[in-house]
């Protein structure tokens, strides 16, 4: 890891003001993603600004829904009674992620900003359009067994966000509050926060240099309470998803009134499937409906040689998640 200067800030204004060079410096909260990437020489920053003292804390019900401060830790949010009771899928997405140690450390903002686990991105010996724009994408024909099949491009097939939380956030219409270096706040729906790779896979989010994630707000609804997050992995714990599904249903008298569906592990970004939701709403809560929704969700899949299995795996994952929620 190359050396850097370190400083602590106590307010957003101070944090942004302390950045000598917004494009080069980095904020550090839990450090679990950042230090890992810096140790692997995938990111280099001459300056780290510690934002742990910023007041981006708290987990509370507001008129807009559940508001979670970006500096809250995964472990605290995952076991918080408000989250467990009203947003089971979000609690599960947190508690099925990483390990207890990492969850004690990692912040919600940092989780949202974690980067791909694509082996070609993470090994500087290989070309990678995300790391070195224009250098190529060996994953297209190489070992792509755990890479994305939805929203991918000829430039990049990485699941840019490999985690779990943002999949649940995408399903349940979460909105991020961001604050830039001038102190100006803006609200961005999570589904518009991540960018598809297209021809510019190096641009992963709409976050501007120096901008901070302040909080995430999730509207409360019947379908958030009746929800689940199902994660399929190569081992039973402590692994990234091969496929996952965040699902919420509002079922009345056997008919689906509202549905929320997002998939993880298969998309170039956390994959909200409005196609699946359309196939569910107004239909009876039956296996036939669930299978039709799963087929709709994967209709646009563009698998490569080693990740074709994900088309069926993701559909089965989604069907099982829908069955669980409908039964519960």
């Amino acid at each position, binding site marked *: *890891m*190359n*050396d*850097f*200067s*370190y*400083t*602590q800030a*106590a307010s957003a204004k101070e944090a942004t003001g302390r950045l000598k060079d917004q494009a080069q410096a980095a904020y*550090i909260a*839990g*450090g*679990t993603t950042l*230090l*890992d990437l810096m*140790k*692997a020489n995938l990111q280099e920053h001459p300056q*780290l600004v*510690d934002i*742990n*003292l910023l*007041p981006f*804390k708290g987990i509370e019900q507001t008129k807009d829904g559940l508001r979670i401060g970006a500096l809250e830790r995964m*472990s605290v949010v995952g076991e918080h009674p408000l989250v467990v009771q009203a947003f089971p899928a979000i609690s599960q997405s947190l508690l099925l992620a*990483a*390990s*207890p*140690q*990492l969850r*004690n*450390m990692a912040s919600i903002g940092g989780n949202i900003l974690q980067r791909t686990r694509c082996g070609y991105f993470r090994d500087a010996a290989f070309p990678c359009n995300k790391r070195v724009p224009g250098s190529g994408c060996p994953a297209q024909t190489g070992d792509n067994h755990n890479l994305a099949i939805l929203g991918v491009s000829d430039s990049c097939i990485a699941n840019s966000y490999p985690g779990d939380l943002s999949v649940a956030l995408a399903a349940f219409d979460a909105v991020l509050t961001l604050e830039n270096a001038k102190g100006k706040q803006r609200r961005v729906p999570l589904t518009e926060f991540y960018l598809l790779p297209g021809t510019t896979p190096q641009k992963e989010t709409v976050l501007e240099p120096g901008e901070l994630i302040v909080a995430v707000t999730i509207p409360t609804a019947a379908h958030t309470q009746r929800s689940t997050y199902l994660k399929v992995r190569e081992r*039973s*714990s*402590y692994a990234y998803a091969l496929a996952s599904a965040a699902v919420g249903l509002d079922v009345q008298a056997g008919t689906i009134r509202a549905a929320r569906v997002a998939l993880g592990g298969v998309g170039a970004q956390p994959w909200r499937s409005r196609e699946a939701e359309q196939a569910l709403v107004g239909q009876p809560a039956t296996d036939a409906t669930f299978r039709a929704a799963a087929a709709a969700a994967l209709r646009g899949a563009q698998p490569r040689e080693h990740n074709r299995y994900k088309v069926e795996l993701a559909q089965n994952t989604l069907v099982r998640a829908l069955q669980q929620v409908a039964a519960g």
Partner: protein
Amino acid sequence: MSSDLFPPADTPSPADNSRRSFLKQSGGILGLALAPPLVSQAERLTAYSKVVAGTTEFTLRVNGQARTVRAEPRVTLLDALRERLDLTGTKKGCDHGQCGACTVHIDGQRTLACLSLAVMQQGKEITTIEGLAQGTELHPMQAAFIKHDGFQCGYCTPGQIMSGVACVREGHADTDDQAREWMSGNLCRCGAYPNILAAVREVAGQPSKG
């Protein structure tokens, strides 16, 4: 000199000389000390408003003792413990947060020392495997690992024990399945998992069903 510590020279004198306006305008250190209590005093006064660059000296509280460390900001807590403080019980496995061998407690929470910067741990209470026993009396988790033979090569053992202590304290070892899930951040290449589970479950109060 840092403008965070001293008010600008042209700051006007308080008109009413009241304590309130004096504090308000003197800003800096006084303002800091009276700022909303979001964080502990210790945290705030150690590193706040200072740019740390190159090798500097700072204090870490490790196993109840104040220890002086000379290190660059990039030095991880793991390297500071092992290379600067001769506390080599904490092991370096993957050094990337994937194996759990470096697990320590920071303010009582199990944490990976390999992904923590030493400079960021000032004012916090760090407990390593060396701080677990009371003199010659082993911690119950250490004794349980010996009783159940919870290791083969022993390299992952300090991390397993630190994680196990926290796992029981968190209330996440009430069933075999729960303990397995909540211990899953600590890998054992020898595969001593059944015996590790037995040790953790015994300390949690119920012997493992295997």
